[in-house]
């Protein structure tokens, strides 16, 4: 049986991971912020439950050079939708790049980007697949 303090500690660590760009928690927090959704909604989009989010947040962020492998590793372990996770990470990375190049235009461009993502999501996934291996592939 899990000790309550043990759970609280994991939650606390996950909260702190949200402030660290090295962690997936940071990526998920930015996504929640941009999409203005709840954690429950995020969990649904990932095919997971809110209960699993703290553990997911403690994962290290996928590396650019091993993107597909890292996405696959995380999604396999947590039984989540790899395509959804890949899309979330890619979206946040795009916003991050935009913010680094021109913080002033972030809001406007982020809106455009989200609109584009909403329209072209299937194509974007295809692009990811051709660039990397398919994260869904077992």
């Amino acid at each position, binding site marked *: 049986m899990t000790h309550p303090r043990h759970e609280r*500690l994991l939650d606390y660590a996950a909260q*702190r991971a949200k402030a660290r760009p090295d962690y997936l928690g940071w990526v998920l927090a930015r996504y929640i912020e941009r999409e203005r959704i709840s954690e429950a909604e995020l969990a649904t989009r990932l095919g997971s439950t809110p209960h699993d989010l703290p553990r997911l947040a403690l994962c*290290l962020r996928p590396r650019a050079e091993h993107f597909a492998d890292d996405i696959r590793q995380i999604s396999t372990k947590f039984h989540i939708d790899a395509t959804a996770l890949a899309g979330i990470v890619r979206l946040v990375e795009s916003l991050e790049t935009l913010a680094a190049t021109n913080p002033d235009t972030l809001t406007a461009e982020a809106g455009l980007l989200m609109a584009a993502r909403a329209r072209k999501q299937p194509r974007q996934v295809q692009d990811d697949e051709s660039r990397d291996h398919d994260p869904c592939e077992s």
Partner: protein
Amino acid sequence: MPLRFDSSQLFKLHHRLCDGDRTAPDELAELILESLVEAIARQFPHTDEQIIWDGIVEAFLDYCARPSQFDERHRVPLDRFLQMASWRNVANALRGETRRRRHVETMARIDTTAAVELDPTAGNVIQQEDTTLIQRQQLGLMNTLQDPKDRQILALRLQGERRTEAFAEILGISHLPIEAQRREVKRTKDRIDKILRRHGGPP
């Protein structure tokens, strides 16, 4: 510390982290965080649980993000290494807390002195002059800086703030990786120190 793991488990997780395993921090957290809390709480009895958790979690997240900072060749076990890093964080936080408290007390004393109805006595005049002198010095330092962000950063430093995130927020660089934040914050502080030195103020 009552061990909930054996060293070979930690050893394996360390190697997984070094090999780029993205999911190892979750397993390591499960294994070690609670033991670290018990060990550090014993070293800092009567200390706020929040400070202890902060110190441990920051040490843990630091290590997982950069596992190479743990060098097995030093023959220090990983749990001991994390314990030492956590201890350092908590000790630093407590030192910062003491400094902040001392500053608040000083400011409160100054406020109290100012609030006292002044008799035309020499003692009160001297106290008032001291207060004015401190305020003038702080104001002088502030006026030396042109950039409002530099002023905010100096004000934070005068309050004893040391956390990179606090300064990064002012600089609007919280979105950057932590290493980049540290570099930028340090660069800004050095620049401010140089300006203050140039104008004869203390860095």
